[in-house]
C-alpha cells in the first residue's frame, strides 16, 4: 500500500484498501463464529 501511495497509483491504493477491508471482515466473521460457539450456553 505504501509503495502504491509513493507511486501515486490511486487505483491500487483503493484496491488494497478494499482487500484490507475484506480480510478484516473475514477475520471478524471467524471471531463472531467462535463467539457463537463459545457462548452457546448464554442463548
Amino acid at each position: 500500500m505504501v509503495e502504491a501511495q509513493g507511486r501515486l497509483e490511486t487505483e491500487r491504493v483503493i484496491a488494497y484498501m478494499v482487500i484490507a477491508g475484506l480480510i478484516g471482515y473475514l477475520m471478524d466473521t471467524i471471531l463472531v463464529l467462535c463467539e457463537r460457539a463459545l457462548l452457546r450456553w448464554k442463548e
Partner: protein
Amino acid sequence: MGDNKQVDRMIHATKTKDRQNWRKMGGRNYNKGAIFSLALICVIWYFAAHAVKAPFIFPYLENVAYQVVYSLTDMYVLENLAITMRRVVTGSLYAFLIGFPLGMVMGYSPKLLQTMSPFINSLRQVPIMAWVPLTIVWFGIGDGPTVFLIAFSGIFTIILNTVSGVQDISKDFYNAARSMGANTFNIIKDIVIPGSLPGVLTGIRLAIGLGWMSVI
C-alpha cells in the same frame, strides 16, 4: 378497525409485516440487504467516477476491481499479506496473554483496579506513533516494533473489556456459589471465566481489528 388504538397498531403491524421485515434486516436474511447496499454503492461509484472524469482523484470502479483481482493473484502481494497477518496474529496473541490475566485480576479485585487504573488509563492515552522511535531502539529493525505496536494497540481494549466483563457478573452467582461451598478457585473457574467471556471476546475482536488497522 377496533376502537382500541393498541389493537389498531397490532393489526397494522400484522398487515404490513413490518416486524418480520425488521427482523430479516438484522437477522437470518441480512445478506440480501448487504448485497443490495454493495450493488447500490457500486452503481453510484461507477456513474459518479465517469461524471467526474478525474481517475487520479476518483478512480473508475472497473479499474479498481481489476486491481483487486490482479492483486489477489499476485504472489508478491499475497506473500506480503501473509507476513502482515502473521504479525497481527502474533501481536494480538501477546496482547491477549498480557491483557486477559491483567483484566481478570483488575475486574476481580477492586483494590488492584484502583491501584492499576491510573497507569493503564494514562498509558493508553499516549499516541501509538510516539512509541515508534522507542520500539526501534528496543527491538531493532524487523518484526519486533510492528508486533509490539500491534500488541500495544490491542492490550488496553482487552484489559478494559475483560474488566467490564468480570464486573458485569451478577453478585447472585458469587453468593450462590459460596453458599454451596465453592472456594475461590471454583468461583474463578466456573463463574468468573465463563461469565466474563462475552466481554473478553468483544475485547479480542476489537484488538484484532485495531491491530489490522494499525499494521497497514
